[in-house]
């Protein structure tokens, strides 16, 4: 307290501290510099490339030369409506919807148990049970299912041991979802999708369920609601935002995936595969671009609906 400190410090020695000080005195400049790299890369290169891709969807391809005609046309979008292409879109959206519904149904008991009853070792087990498949390599998970669904694999073995092979065969005999074996049927593709995206449903659902006050459920029971009623009228409405948040992942990820149906499934194309083929071997970039517009539009609508249901607060 003996010496008086100057109200304004003298400039500090050294280039870096001086630069830092100077920046701090210009907060706008500072913020600008902080967001400059991300704006350059994501805002200009990445979004620019996205827009360039979308613009291509309004071009068409000359059927004789195979060259892209750079004139505005809706012809390429018309091509999307051809039966073969419409089939691809329909197949993908139905699969994404089915996977999402199944994931919600399957995730609920896991998330509910983990949120409400799991303690100690069980809590850790549930954590590992969700995190391990969530973060394990995507391809390793697909590979694991190749092992499970193989003809000589464990699933057929279990059915044989239980003397239920006839049931499996009857199931595979069903039209559309069946096939020669599980690994070349829609049912197989569905199982793998369900497995791979299920943790993405469990996480937000569990986060929503943890926030349900137990007192509310007890109050409902005290007031005479039977478990089904408290589930329908208390737990489900409160868990819905979490479920919708999870469904964003399961739906969007299934919509764009092109590796799972390529490895497990029959040879019918899904949207991602169609994009890949049109972009690569077929060289029809406008059609590939038009195909990619579909998931963008579908997800845009989905996100808009989800936002209105308050799903983003549950993330």
């Amino acid at each position, binding site marked *: 307290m003996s010496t008086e400190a100057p109200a304004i410090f003298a400039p500090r020695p050294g280039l870096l501290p001086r630069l830092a000080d100077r920046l701090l005195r210009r907060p706008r400049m500072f913020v600008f510099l902080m967001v400059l790299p*991300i704006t350059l*890369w994501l805002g200009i290169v990445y979004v620019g490339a996205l827009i360039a891709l979308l613009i291509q969807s309004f071009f068409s391809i000359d059927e004789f030369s195979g060259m892209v005609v750079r004139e505005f046309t809706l012809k390429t979008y018309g091509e999307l409506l051809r039966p073969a292409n419409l089939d691809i879109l329909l197949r993908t959206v139905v699969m994404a919807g089915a996977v999402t519904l199944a994931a919600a149904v399957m995730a609920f008991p896991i998330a509910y148990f983990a949120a409400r009853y799991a303690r100690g070792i069980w809590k850790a087990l549930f954590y590992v049970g969700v995190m391990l498949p969530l973060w394990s390599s995507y391809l390793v998970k697909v590979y694991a299912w190749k092992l499970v669904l193989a003809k000589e694999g464990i699933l057929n073995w279990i059915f044989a041991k239980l003397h239920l092979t006839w049931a499996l065969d009857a199931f595979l005999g069903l039209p559309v979802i069946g096939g020669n074996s599980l690994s070349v049927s829609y049912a197989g593709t569905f199982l793998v999708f369900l497995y791979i995206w299920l943790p993405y449903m469990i996480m937000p659902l569990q986060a929503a369920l*943890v926030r349900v006050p137990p007192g509310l459920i007890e109050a409902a029971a005290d007031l005479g609601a039977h478990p089904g009623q408290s589930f329908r009228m208390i737990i489900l409405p409160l868990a819905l935002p979490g479920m919708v948040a999870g469904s964003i992942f399961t739906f969007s990820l299934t919509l764009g995936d092109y590796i799972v149906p390529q490895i497990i499934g029959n040879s019918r194309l899904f949207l*991602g595969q169609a994009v890949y083929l049109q972009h690569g071997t077929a060289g029809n970039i406008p059609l590939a671009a038009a195909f990619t517009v579909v998931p963008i539009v579908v997800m845009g609508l989905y996100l808009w609906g989800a936002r209105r249901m308050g799903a983003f607060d549950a993330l």
Partner: protein
Amino acid sequence: MPSERRPPLALTLAAAAGLVFLLAPIALIFLYAFSSEEKSFQWPPPGFTVKWIGVTLHRPDVWQALGLSLKVAAISTVVALVLGTLTAAAVSRSRFFGREAISLLVILPIALPGIITGISLRSAFALLDVPFSTWTIVLGHATFCIVIVYNNAVARFRRTSGALIDAAMDLGADGLQTFRMVILPNIATALLAGGMLAFALSFDEVIVTTFTAGNQTTLPIWMLEELVRPRQRPVTNVVAMAVVIVTILPILAAYYLTRDGAQTAGSDK
């Protein structure tokens, strides 16, 4: 919402069945890595052997793919750490024109299907005349890794009081000192967790990589080739097991670092 009541039996059974569904396929990977069967995926394995681990260790293609994957993941993580933290600091500390747009921008590469990001980047590289190399893979990976670091850092910045920074400055610390001695220690664990998740994500990525890799082979691309055209199943089994172990360790560490009160770490991939 822990409660004291016992869970209904049906719920317990359904939850347990769910856990088995989630964990059994991964357990299977570990079993098959030691199977003595070479030609098929026979269950139960006719015998067990550690022979294939030795064989895999002597495969140069596996080592090369692993080396490239580690390199790409490490560089992408560093890039994502720098850019993600800068952006998070700007977005959480100040209000400026385009702030909302930037937080949307960061999420975009992960919200859109990977195939769209992949195709866009590929056409951008073609347009800018950038030849495919390790760096194009890194750029692709960094693009979607930023959001992981950003999410972790934003959550931490929100909980860190701005008064701390003001106090440091009032006490005479310059900008760099404040950063080193006040900001960094506060956000260090969040960055570490975010960095590890970003590393795991990059190490595992295949869809964007197929578009930005040219003819280089990362470990996931090696794995994909093996899946499409199986050549040596036992080696693939061992590699699959190794990949599970490599991706799991950072996850457990990230959980350990953020376990008190933060769901930010793994809640969004």
